């Protein structure tokens, strides 16, 4: 990888353009951490790629993209606010949890993360982590911790909920590589002797079973691991069905996800 002088200049252009193999990229990243000469060179070349990011023909984002983004953002924020409020309620005068928070906050600062001046509230990951620790009393804590620590390459599809059937529920489809997972929060129990069943639907076709059923706990939380085939569908639906599942939906969907 390196030249006779021990540098990797031949590959740096490809590296900053993201055109190296994974193995090459790892080797170069390791080299840049040790070689100030190449690191400076890489920063210089990266300035050009940074400019290329914005050097494109302007195109307006459609309004529906903002609508979808903000719907997810507000749903997350609402869940987070509820968990934060429960945390406050669960620790009278803020004693035990505040101690955790202060420790976490100190650790966050020590890592040199960005912290805006005058910010009085704690960093979200710290709160989410504390919420996870207090899972016995905090309903949404684990979900929040997972939200804030999810892998970078995960793709999320937000579900549309029928709030007449499932008031206050939220759900999302997580896609990562060939894996697909449906995660729900706040879904009511499906009924005695019943389960929630997941359906796949292609455009203008009847729903077909996704070979996945799931139950929810007392807080309405549930997870369905889905087969990779669901990524070929246009839409997922979830209905309440008798234990063991049905060949066709027998009740209206409580939620649906456009893939």
């Amino acid at each position, binding site marked *: 990888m390196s030249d006779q002088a021990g540098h990797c200049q031949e590959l740096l252009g490809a590296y900053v353009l993201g*055109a190296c193999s994974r193995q090459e990229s790892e080797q170069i990243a390791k080299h840049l951490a040790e070689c100030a000469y190449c690191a400076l060179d890489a920063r*210089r*070349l990266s300035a050009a790629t940074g400019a290329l990011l914005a050097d494109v023909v302007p195109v307006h*984002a*459609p309004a529906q993209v*903002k609508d979808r983004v903000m719907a997810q953002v507000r749903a997350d924020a609402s869940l987070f606010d509820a968990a934060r409020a429960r945390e406050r309620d669960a620790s009278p005068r803020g004693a035990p949890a505040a101690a955790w928070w202060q420790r976490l906050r100190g650790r966050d600062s020590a890592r040199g993360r960005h912290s805006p001046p005058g910010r009085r509230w704690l960093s979200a990951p710290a709160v989410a982590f504390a919420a996870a620790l207090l899972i016995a009393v905090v309903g949404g804590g684990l979900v929040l911790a997972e*939200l804030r620590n999810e892998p970078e390459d995960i793709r*999320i599809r937000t579900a549309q909920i029928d709030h007449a059937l499932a008031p206050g529920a939220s759900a999302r489809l997580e896609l990562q590589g060939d894996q697909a997972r449906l995660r729900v929060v706040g879904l009511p129990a499906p009924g005695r002797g019943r389960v929630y069943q997941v359906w796949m639907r292609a455009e203008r076709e009847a729903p077909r079973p996704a070979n996945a059923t799931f139950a929810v706990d007392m807080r309405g939380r549930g997870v369905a691991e889905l087969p990779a085939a669901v990524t070929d569908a246009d839409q997922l639906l979830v209905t309440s069905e008798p234990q063991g599942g049905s060949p066709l939906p027998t009740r209206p969907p409580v939620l649906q996800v456009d893939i």
Partner: protein
Amino acid sequence: MNRSTEPQRLGDEELIGLVADMDAGAFEVLYDRHSQAVYSLCYRIAGSRSLADDVCQEAFISLWRSGSRYDPRRGSVRSWILSIAHNRAIDQIRRTTRHDARQVHDDGDALAERLPASERTDAEVLRRAEVDDTERMLDLLPGDQRKVISLAFYSGYSHSEIAEVLGVPLGTVKSRMRLGLERLQVHMMEGAER
């Protein structure tokens, strides 16, 4: 910073701090400020409205959930957001494209070939827009350098794939990439000095 301060009056770095606290209002201001740049980049890479919609959405949701990871020492909020979008878009086209099935004659052809027929109109519009716009930085480069940089940065090809589809040695591709980036950097510095 007072939380009652109107988010529109705040700078990006202050806003991203609020986003780290899951402040939806602050996030919306960031969205409004940067969505056109992000969407334009997504569209340039993805080559269709439908893919650009998905990638843009994923990029902003990722920003929302990773706001606390922003490190001002590594650049502006805008460049961070654009980097997230770029990574997402390249991942997306690599997932949906079989590179070995592509025959590349120029960048526009590659873009059209990886799209379903129903979406090729978008690609053609984009290509025409690029041809019409002579102010793009890449147009400052000789054609051979422009092509390898464009294929790598906007189309997600690796250096070895580019060498194969263009039929030139790998070393040539690497040196064209480097020379092209150096030339762009010189243009940027000259522009800054003017």
